[in-house]
């Protein structure tokens, strides 16, 4: 009992002194931050990083907007960055405190969602495609038809991740439109495609790493990092890049407007742009990072993985989802409701 009380006191105390010297509060996606990276950071700077998890961009946004959260850094996805900026929740970074900014790979140094990289620093990026057991389905896997017009071999064996924005965007692109489209004709087509295909799906669930590996599912709409893990466990499963268009994502670190530990935050931001450190981030979560020179420090199996290094012929079809307007979002939600009712 005494132990419990002292443990309580300790925990209460740690949350109370989070603003003290040598502390940093990182608000990040769950299971996305390499513990070794944080240890190395502490060894170099003496700063202890406390990581708190979230599981969706919307949760993170709503929580930070509500205030009193105690976080210093957050890692929003590309299409959410403009929202954070517009709401004044994240601030422009002082480039003079980030000497390693030059390490950002040219393709990520000036991006549509953050022109000139004024507000964010790259964390990891990847894609949403289709992972297919190629012994069950031998046809072309580089197409969204795999889940939108399910081939006979995959009927009742394919899963679709319940990610509203990604899935509706893929269907919209397959129907010939752009993501976040407001064109009723295209959207109607996308909706009909999804509704017609749904009876052929086994489920709309996460956990593809598990269930593709153990053969419960023969295919799934899936993220590239997860698909790489699956291939290692079950070499029959290959990752396809739909040629009609597939979503790319990049999660970037941003400094919160009400951060308490600003100096520490800058040290961390600069720290993760060192190629060796960026490679540690990738090695843990299995996604690419966006820092030049980090390739040399990447784990062997990731250097050549077709899931991580997008093959040249598939590069063009990758699309960063834009930030949808309220109107477009209304369409997307309506389609999703129709699909899951």
């Amino acid at each position, binding site marked *: 009992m005494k132990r*419990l009380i002292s*443990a*309580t006191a300790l*925990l*209460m105390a*740690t*949350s*109370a002194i*989070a603003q003290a010297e040598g502390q940093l*509060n990182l*608000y990040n*996606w*769950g*299971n*996305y931050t390499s*513990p070794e990276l944080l240890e190395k950071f502490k060894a170099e700077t003496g700063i202890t990083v*406390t*990581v*708190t*998890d*979230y*599981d969706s961009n919307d*949760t993170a946004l*709503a*929580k930070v907007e*509500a*205030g*009193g*959260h*105690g*976080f*210093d850094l957050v890692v929003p996805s590309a299409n959410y960055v403009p929202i954070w900026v517009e709401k004044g929740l994240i601030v422009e970074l002082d480039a003079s405190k980030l000497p390693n900014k030059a390490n950002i790979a040219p393709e990520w140094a000036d991006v549509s969602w953050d022109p000139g990289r004024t507000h964010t620093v790259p964390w990891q990026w990847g894609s949403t495609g289709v992972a297919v057991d190629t012994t069950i389905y031998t046809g072309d896997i580089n197409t969204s038809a795999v889940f939108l017009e399910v081939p006979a071999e995959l009927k009742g064996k394919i899963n679709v991740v319940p990610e509203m924005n990604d899935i509706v965007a893929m269907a919209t692109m397959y129907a010939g439109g752009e993501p976040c489209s407001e064109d009723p004709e295209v959207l109607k087509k996308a909706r009909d495609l999804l509704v017609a295909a749904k009876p052929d799906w086994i489920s709309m669930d*996460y*956990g593809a*790493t*598990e*269930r593709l*590996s*153990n053969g*419960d599912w023969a295919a799934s709409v899936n993220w590239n*990092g*997860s698909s790489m*893990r699956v291939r290692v*466990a079950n070499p029959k499963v290959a990752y396809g890049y739909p040629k009609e268009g597939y979503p790319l994502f990049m999660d970037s670190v941003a400094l919160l407007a009400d951060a308490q530990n600003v100096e520490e935050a800058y040290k961390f931001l600069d720290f993760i742009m060192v190629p060796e450190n960026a490679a540690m981030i990738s090695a843990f*979560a299995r996604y690419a990072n966006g820092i030049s020179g980090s390739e040399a420090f990447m784990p062997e199996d990731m250097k050549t993985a077709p899931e991580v290094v997008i093959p040249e012929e598939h590069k063009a079809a990758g699309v960063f989802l834009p930030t949808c307007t309220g109107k477009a979002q209304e369409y997307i939600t309506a389609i999703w409701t129709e699909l899951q009712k």
Partner: protein
Amino acid sequence: MAERRFEIGRIPGFATVAVATFVMLYLPIATLVAFSFNEGNSIAVWEGLSLHWYREAWDNQAVKDATARSLIIAVCAAVISTTVATMAALGTTRRAKFRGETFIYVAINQPLMVPEIVTAVALMIFFGMIKVATGYQGLGYLILAHSAFCIPFAYLPIRARLEGMDLSLEAAASDLYATPWKTFRHVTLPLLGPGILAGAMLAFVISLDDVIITEFVKSGGQDTLPTYMLGQLRRTMTPEVNAISTALLALTVMLLTAFFLLTRKRD
């Protein structure tokens, strides 16, 4: 007496259903324990026996902190909610009906009626304002929130117990000039025991399980085991979580055995 009670209370088929229920309850738990010893990093594909994930969990400071935090919140929430729920149950049961009794009943059960996400968003906004105003961001908010939504879970079993309790013993005690406190302490409370125990256990378990409200109320560095696992949901679940769960189970069983042996000796 006990033997007799058992004989009389026997209803054919009930024991079979009960045993089947216990088997059903423990089958998934057995699977989960088995996979905690898995060599590979899957919770579904068996790759051989190993303690690998126990070491992993033990070395993972985030997991240890989250587990401790979960337990502390659950203990506090169970104690607080059971205490106030017992008082409320005593206040609203076995008395002449009074104005507002139905209101109290509905108010107490209100946390049950709202989907978690709603309470979560409401608390996020409300506590957010308080956090900004006071600057305090400690565990207090989580304990407060958990205590509140655990109240009905503690209240209902206690009330169910109270509702049919015999008034005559208490009346007799007070006729013997026992003070109300003494009557409560020596007559009512012991009779109420099983209800309180049931209520407290429910509250504890409900608090331990909560994801959504915690996710929205927590401040920096306040992940509990469920929110830690929620963060993993979209990625990969490893047997690490099985190992933590199994360790928690083992701990419970040990405490329970000790408790059981001790009370047995006293008898």
